[in-house]
């Protein structure tokens, strides 16, 4: 019985994995460039600091669940209104909930990445920037050759955390009926009536996925250890 439920659960969850990966990768990739640029601006200009700060605070203060409920009750009618006003012929209510989920996850990830890169750019030593200027680098070169590569390196541990948090956030997409891993595990629970096995396996799937992500980041980070500390191969559990 239990073994049977176990197999059924795994069979049900695995087809949800690609969607979970999409819900992680797409918002992350979309948010990366604006996150780096806005994080840089936030670390520099006063106006940019406050504007991006307001954005970050807004998303840090609203539970993701609430954003999802919002998006689901408000966005479709807003879009439909817009479509009607502009005479578009799209059926707004036929838009896949996956897009709504990606939108919500994107806005939250962007807020996280702005903070990650703000602190990474702030950690770039001012004296190395000055050395580049003294050597005749144009400001754009200072950014590309000195600030950006160093910020990239400093950001890695926090970027790993932001990615893991994104995976965890993506579980909430089931509330929008997106059949990613959590949504599929609920179906499995309905089939087998063995909720503990269903959610136990689901939890392990997320933990394994996050472990793989952390390991990948650790591998990349390990390559920078010599630059940061001068000795090769120091690595720790995140």
């Amino acid at each position: 019985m239990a073994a049977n439920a176990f197999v059924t659960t795994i069979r049900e969850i695995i087809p949800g994995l690609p969607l979970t990966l999409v819900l992680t990768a797409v918002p992350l990739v979309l948010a990366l460039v604006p996150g780096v640029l806005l994080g840089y601006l936030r670390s520099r200009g006063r106006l940019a600091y406050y504007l991006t700060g307001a954005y970050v605070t807004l998303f840090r203060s609203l539970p993701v669940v609430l954003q999802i409920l919002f998006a689901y009750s408000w966005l479709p009618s807003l879009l439909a209104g817009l479509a009607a006003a502009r005479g578009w012929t799209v059926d707004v209510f036929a838009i896949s909930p996956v897009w709504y989920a990606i939108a919500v996850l994107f806005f939250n990830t962007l807020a996280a990445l702005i903070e990650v890169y703000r602190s990474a750019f702030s950690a770039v030593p001012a004296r190395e920037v000055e050395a580049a200027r003294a050597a005749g680098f144009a400001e754009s070169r200072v950014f590309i050759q000195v600030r950006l590569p160093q910020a990239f390196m400093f950001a890695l541990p926090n970027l790993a955390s932001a990615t893991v948090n994104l995976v965890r956030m993506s579980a909430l997409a089931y509330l929008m009926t997106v059949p990613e891993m959590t949504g599929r595990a609920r179906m499995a629970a309905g089939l087998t009536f063995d909720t503990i096995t269903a959610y136990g396996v689901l939890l392990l799937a997320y933990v394994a996925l996050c472990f793989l992500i952390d390991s990948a980041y650790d591998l990349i980070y390990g390559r920078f250890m010599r630059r940061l500390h001068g000795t090769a191969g120091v690595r720790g559990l995140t």
Partner: protein
Amino acid sequence: MIRVTDLTKMYGSLRALDGVSLAIEKGEIVTVIGPSGGGKTTLLRMIDLLEPADHGRLQFDSLDVDMHRPGRTKKLAVRRRIGFVFQQFNLFSHRTVRQNIVDVLCFGHGWPKRDAEAAADEALLDVDLADKRDAYPAELSGGQAQRAAIARAMAARPDLLILDEPTSALDPELTGEVAAVIRRLASDGMTMLMVTHHVDLAAELADRVLVLADGRIVEEGFVHDVLDNPQTDRTAAFLERVRPPGRSGL
């Protein structure tokens, strides 16, 4: 070759530099000494146009620059003619020693990569660091890092080398190797403007000494005149503090 006229820099209400004028001839070595907070670093940074001055004029051969508003083109032109060696080395920590030099030549001076690499290897030979070319700055001793920084500053053959206390961040036993490199540059006829508390080195190399205190040049002259026979009490007191006991110049 280079002339600074009436340079003034304010930080808030603090007069970091107060109407400083100086001139350096080609091949000349000028050292700047003076109490901490006297404005020495600020003077060097202003000459390299690293920050706008409140007032001042810089003439560098045929270039004539308003130090308050230098404009992008002149700013880059001046910086490219000057090599700058910092107290804390300021090597790019994410680049190897060799890449540090190549980057400066490629991105600061627009050299092709191949030429830059050849010049970098040559510059590293000059400072006896060929074996450390693939090390990262975090893997170097202070003396090695400062020699790498000098190689980086010299790789593009600047007209003027500026050094800001190049030995004061080093352990005493490491100052010798850096001093040796500077000595060699001097014997090659390099034009230099150097801040140092290393009075022996100043006495040995410099043609002239400027004493900077409270943002003003309080004393200026040939090296032995200033060091052995200071004209103001401040200079005498300052020399008393930095000079190793039992010695008087060279």
